[in-house]
């Protein structure tokens, strides 16, 4: 019965285009027999644009085989880092999908932007006060949340971290994109695009968050280890398109021999593209991270070579699934990878990719 | 009777001004000493020397209980038992009564931690001792001025003061509150303590003091026993028997045409039923003590402050004046007593300042004709003899007299019919004063209707054709220049509050 249910669940996930996302996950195969493992994500990343189905995967919703159906009265409360941004809306979509599927109510909240730590703590407190069956948290500041986490634990409410790790042993698992591996994948593709040599620059959107660091370090360390003929310039930090464009332009002007440029999120990548256009360097290969309308357009019209995307819908889905498991006392792995995928002009319209791209 | 306090040879020089000159003062044990003098006679300066706020010039001596002391600063004065209650209360409105009482006081905290409850208990004890009914937990700002003053008194007493100075304590009090204050004063005075009471109000001086010392122009005039003299004599001591300048105006008003007529003017807090008129070429002086309401009349007529009732007519036409723009448009110019704060743009040039009230004449669709402004600036600088190398000079760099001339130029360029001068020679040195007076005479000859508010009686007598005297927000009388003397002006100006209220209501 359970197997049956999970098969239905997976089928519906597929139908909604939620599953595909590439290299480190495989959800294209609904075969429940591969579904038993739910271990952490691989650190190494397969070279990217191959068909997702060929990369055997750990993690992912295969574990759905064990997801018990709820009775529709229990609530799973997700406190995200943001609310308006399309990424979080996609996470929400996935979460609500899972809630509907397994008959749980899903509350999804998040502060106005990703700097409002206090606002998020208030939301977490509200979540605790409403006594949900489980809480999912994408912490803006792990340290600041530690008191509340203790209280949540004391109240016997299971807590699942998502998006970025929470610096505490209280969360039962973390559902996240392996940003480090994804950044390495971006680096790998850039090396390929520039033929293995030349000077490349990188624009990181942020240097204080875990995500920001991993996306920066993954790129740099891949280059250091695997691309001896590539010179990497010191990174510039710019989280807004305008600033990123200025920074990109400055780098290009200062280093006319530059052949490649990496932007660690939508704004950084879009700025990098803009900088390349404005400085008239059409040979420059730009790779990015995440999606968004500007990046998608740039990739489609050839201004940008490609990007790695996270799988926000899957992240939301997996978070709720993990929460349900926790409610039912099932074992959870330390980390659940929500996957990532390389995309470029050649595969951008593939349904598996397109489902995780947002404008 | 032993001398509790003696001041000998006290002088105090500020840059350019000798505020006190060889002043003597003595206070007996168990006595209330009145200290009188005109505005600027040096009363407050003397008391600030006594309580350590100012350091006197060398040679001054202060004797306490027959021992010479040197008051180093305010805290030292307190330690010696000298306390002062200023006209302006030194209270923090947002703190409670108890917090105010112990603010900045040693022993009010332990290592930076404040125990409010302990403070409140100590405050309550203190109030009990003096029979004051004040809640130590009340927010200071919520108390009436009278009660705030009591808190100040309690604070002064709590330092075990032996000598208390009160500077114009009744300025904001009602009759009943004044009586209550007098009771407190009588309770305070014991065979080992003394009180110095500064006031303009003769009836109060008569009621509460034992002796009265008089200062004039920073000099000691003399001391009399209150019961042995008429108040009139004290007033004449204040004004001086021989008045320095017996100068009178050199012009006459041009015609009988009334240019400004003010009827039934009242304001929310102070003014009551003010009526006066100024004719063409006439200078009407406003005399009175500080706080009598002269500046308020000027500001209400001009529109700078709100009035609760009152009609204003200019050249027979009733004008609606609700703000300064209306006032200017009605042809009224107001020259504030505080030029720097209310009259001038210090960082702008002479010509820009002079043109400020008449900018509509100097622009076309918003474009400013700086050449015209410069031209008119030059013209009026010359007319008014502003001493400056250039009309591009910043106002900040001019002397007080020249600054005043620029303000006058501003209203002349505006061609205002009515000019209200509030303390026209304040902060201007003696030489330049006469120049300003001559300018007023000139304006009178040109047919302007002029109001001059002044605290200096010789000045009022020098420039005014008629003099309106104010006290406590009312006009207590009009005097023609011919009949006016410093003495009869002071008499009208020092009428006590009950008399004024009784006479008019």
């Amino acid at each position, binding site marked *: 019965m359970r197997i049956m249910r999970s098969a239905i669940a997976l089928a519906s996930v597929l139908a909604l285009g939620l599953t595909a996302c590439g290299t480190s996950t495989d959800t294209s195969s609904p075969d429940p027999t591969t579904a038993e493992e739910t271990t952490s994500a691989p650190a190494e990343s397969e070279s990217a644009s191959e068909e997702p189905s060929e990369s055997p995967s750990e993690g992912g919703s295969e574990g759905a085989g064990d997801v018990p159906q709820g009775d529709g009265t229990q609530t799973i409360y997700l406190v995200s880092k943001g609310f308006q941004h399309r990424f979080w809306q996609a996470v929400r979509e996935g979460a609500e999908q899972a809630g509907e599927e397994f008959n749980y109510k899903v509350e999804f909240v998040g502060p106005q932007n990703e700097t409002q730590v206090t606002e998020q703590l208030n939301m977490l407190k509200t979540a605790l006060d409403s006594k949900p069956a489980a809480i999912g948290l994408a912490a803006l500041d792990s340290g600041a949340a530690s008191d509340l986490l203790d209280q949540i634990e004391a109240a016997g409410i299971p807590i699942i971290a998502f998006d970025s790790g929470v610096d505490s042993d209280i969360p039962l698992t973390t559902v996240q994109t392996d940003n480090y591996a994804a950044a390495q994948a971006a680096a790998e593709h850039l090396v390929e695009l520039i033929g293995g040599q030349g000077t490349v620059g990188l624009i990181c959107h942020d240097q204080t968050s875990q995500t920001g660091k991993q996306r920066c370090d993954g790129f740099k360390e891949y280059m250091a280890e695997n691309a001896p003929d590539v010179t990497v310039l010191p990174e510039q930090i710019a989280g807004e398109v305008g600033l990123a464009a200025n920074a990109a332009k400055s780098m290009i002007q200062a280093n006319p021999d530059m052949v490649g440029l990496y932007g660690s999120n939508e704004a950084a990548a879009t700025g990098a593209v803009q900088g390349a256009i404005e400085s008239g360097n059409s040979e420059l290969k730009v790779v990015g991270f995440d999606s968004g309308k500007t990046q998608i357009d740039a990739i489609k019209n050839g201004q940008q070579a490609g990007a790695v995307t996270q799988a926000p819908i899957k992240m939301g889905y997996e978070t709720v699934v993990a929460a349900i498991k926790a409610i039912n006392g099932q074992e959870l792995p330390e980390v659940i990878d929500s996957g990532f995928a390389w995309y470029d002009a050649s595969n951008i319209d593939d349904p598996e990719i397109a489902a995780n791209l947002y404008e | 009777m032993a001398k509790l306090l003696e001041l000998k040879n006290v002088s105090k020089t500020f840059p350019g001004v000798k505020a006190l000159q060889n002043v003597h003062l003595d206070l007996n044990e168990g006595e209330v000493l009145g200290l009188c003098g005109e505005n600027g006679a040096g009363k407050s300066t003397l008391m600030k020397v006594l309580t350590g706020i100012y350091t006197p010039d060398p040679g001054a001596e202060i004797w306490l209980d027959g021992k010479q002391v040197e008051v180093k600063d305010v805290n030292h004065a307190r330690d010696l038992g000298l306390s002062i209650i200023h006209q302006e209360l030194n209270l923090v409105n947002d703190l409670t009564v108890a917090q105010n009482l112990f603010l900045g006081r040693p022993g009010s905290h332990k290592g930076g931690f404040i125990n409010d409850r302990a403070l409140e208990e100590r405050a309550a004890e203190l109030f009990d001792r003096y029979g004051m009914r004040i809640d130590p937990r009340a927010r200071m700002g919520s108390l009436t001025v009278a009660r705030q003053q009591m808190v100040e008194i309690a604070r002064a007493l709590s330092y075990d003061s032996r000598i208390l100075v009160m500077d114009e304590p009744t300025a904001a009090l009602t009759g009943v509150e004044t009586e209550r204050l007098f009771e407190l004063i009588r309770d305070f005075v014991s065979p080992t303590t003394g009180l110095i009471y500064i006031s303009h109000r003769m009836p109060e001086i008569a009621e509460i003091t034992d002796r009265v010392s008089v200062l004039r122009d920073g000099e000691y005039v003399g001391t009399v026993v209150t019961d042995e003299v008429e108040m009139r004599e004290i007033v004449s001591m204040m004004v001086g028997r021989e008045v320095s300048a017996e100068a009178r105006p050199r012009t006459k008003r041009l015609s009988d045409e009334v240019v400004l007529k003010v009827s039934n003017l009242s304001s929310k807090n102070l003014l009551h039923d003010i009526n006066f008129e100024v004719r063409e070429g006439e200078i009407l002086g406003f005399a009175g003590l500080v706080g009598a309401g002269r500046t308020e009349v000027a500001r209400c007529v001009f529109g700078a402050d709100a009035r609760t009732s009152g009609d204003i007519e200019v050249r027979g036409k009733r004008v609606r004046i609700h703000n*300064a723009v209306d006032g200017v448009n009605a042809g009224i110019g107001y020259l504030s007593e505080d030029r720097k704060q209310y009259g*001038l743009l210090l960082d702008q040039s002479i010509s820009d300042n002079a043109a400020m009230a008449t900018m509509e004449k100097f622009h076309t669709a918003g474009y400013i004709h700086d050449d015209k402004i410069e031209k008119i600036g030059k013209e009026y600088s010359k007319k008014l003899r502003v001493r400056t190398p250039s009309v591009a000079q910043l106002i900040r760099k001019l002397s007080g007299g020249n600054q005043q001339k620029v303000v006058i130029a501003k209203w002349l360029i505006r061609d205002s019919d009515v000019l209200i001068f509030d303390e026209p020679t304040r902060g201007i040195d003696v030489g330049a004063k006469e120049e300003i007076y001559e300018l007023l005479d000139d304006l009178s000859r040109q047919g302007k209707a002029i109001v001059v508010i002044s605290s200096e009686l010789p000045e009022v007598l020098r420039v005014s054709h008629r003099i309106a005297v104010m006290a406590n927000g009312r006009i207590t009388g009009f005097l023609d220049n011919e009949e006016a003397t410093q003495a009869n002006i002071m008499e009208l100006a020092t009428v006590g509050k009950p008399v004024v209220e009784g006479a008019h209501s």
Partner: protein
Amino acid sequence: MSTTEETKTEVEHEAKKEGRSGSSFQQLLVLLALVAIYVFFMFAAPNFAQLGIAIDILSQSAYIGVMALGTTFIIATGGIDLSSGTGMSLMAVAAGIFLAAPPYWNLPLGAGLLLVLLVGALIGAINGANVAILGLPPFIATLAMMMAARGLALVISQTQTISIANPGYKNLVQGNLIPRFELGGSTIAIPNSVLIFILLAIVAAFLLNKTLLGRYALAIGSNEEATRLSGVNVRFWKMMVYIVGGLFVAIGAILYSGRFGFVQPSEGVGFELNVIAAAVIGGTSLSGGRANITGTVIGALIMQTLTKGLQMMGLRQEWQLVVTGVVVLIAVLIDIQRQRRANAA
């Protein structure tokens, strides 16, 4: 020439220098600072010494610079505008909504731009009303607007990026009214944003020095009460100043979004501080009464030159911020010193 005459001309000269625009000595210092910074990078940063870089600095400082022009008027009155950054974001989104293809309004370029300016004037008018009529402190009034504008930008954009396909829009900012030309072997292209910046700086200088608006703004900042008692309608003119500020922010928004051809609602946070810094570096006094358009332009250029140069040296953003902070500090210190001397005199 007699001695007195000599002194007279000297003083006259001195007086002219020290007028409402602040001392020319300070302006000279600011200009020297810009030149010094520029020369430093010519040697320190690779490839910095080319005309293209200078044009880049101009065009990249255009939107901050234009907003700073408007804010200079507000600061001249003794006010402040904290809403320019997010206000810019809101107006950029508005531009997107007016001009982008359906489902947006798809208006003709002229009509769309006019509406953006109108939104700018409206935001300015609200700030102005709050300050001049309701009597809110400018800091609070514009802080509230800063938050509200950010929220509104997110709401009306539905947090979506809006592409403005209208070719005229991008051309307005990025196009080259002055044809590209060859110079020393490289093609020089001056984007229109640079021309707009220069033109608006001239307009602003005219407004500040030659019109009632500027004169009254400075008068209010110098001594509001004295200005009121001179019969000037202070409320009205303060309103006007904030409206002008809003208009300049709207133009800044057009310059910013026209560069990319798309608008994102979350941009612009913190820009207001750069805007204020540009004015302050340029010698406009935060306490009002003294303002200087040339200084503001140079202030904006100094900040962009620093950023550009440090970026081209490969220095990280942190250091760019630190250096900019130090420059702001020095500029204000010079200003305070100057005022102390003036007050002592």
